[in-house]
């Protein structure tokens, strides 16, 4: 849906939908894993995300990079950058059919509920040293 402002200018943000995108360098995640190890992992990722990331170092960095990008894309879409929320409150789940889903927990879920968020849609992509995540948030029609 494209929002049309009163003057007829197209708006990138509809009142009923928000977008977020983030791009992460896989090599930077690999470097963080090497520098901070489990401390980095457990501050940012849930047990299920870490389990899915697996043990192979290269694959692990790729998958965690995509998940970090997804968390940041959700934060951008919901405009939570200055709300003070933990990354583990945004969880990326791999579904049986290969798609990924986003679950919101704790205060992040509460803030989203107050905003009138109905659905959070996620698409992840990888290319070489980069992992990207695109998030679309659908809001209730009555929410402002």
């Amino acid at each position: 849906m494209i929002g049309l402002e009163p003057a007829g200018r197209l708006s990138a943000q509809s009142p009923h939908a928000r977008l977020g995108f983030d791009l992460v360098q896989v090599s930077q995640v690999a470097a963080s894993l090497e520098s901070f190890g489990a401390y980095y992992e457990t501050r940012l990722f849930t047990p299920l995300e870490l389990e899915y990331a697996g043990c192979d170092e290269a694959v692990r960095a790729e998958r965690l990079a995509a998940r970090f990008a997804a968390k940041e894309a959700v934060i951008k879409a919901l405009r939570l950058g200055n709300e003070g929320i933990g990354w583990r409150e945004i969880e990326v789940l791999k579904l049986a059919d290969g798609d990924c889903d986003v679950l919101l927990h704790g205060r992040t879920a509460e803030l989203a509920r107050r905003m009138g968020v109905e659905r959070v849609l996620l698409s992840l992509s990888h290319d070489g040293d980069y992992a990207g995540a695109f998030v679309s948030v659908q809001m209730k029609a009555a929410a402002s």
Partner: protein
Amino acid sequence: MIDVQDAEATIRTVLRDHGRLKQDVAALDAGSDLYQSGMTSHASVNVMLALEGAFDVEFPDHMLKRNVFSSIASIQRALGELTGA
């Protein structure tokens, strides 16, 4: 208790090592915007983890805000809150 000058020097060291800034950290004012200076959201995580190690503190979730890590001065204020300095 953190000595103010020591804290700023340590913060600058952490930013130099983990911030991925596009300019010399020594040339930045305490109020300069670190994101405008090239720090990515992922680099800010590394900065946070390194600060926690350097100052033996842990940033609680409610302090994980973009504006807390947006400048040397704001980082120093947050560390002051955490340490009671």
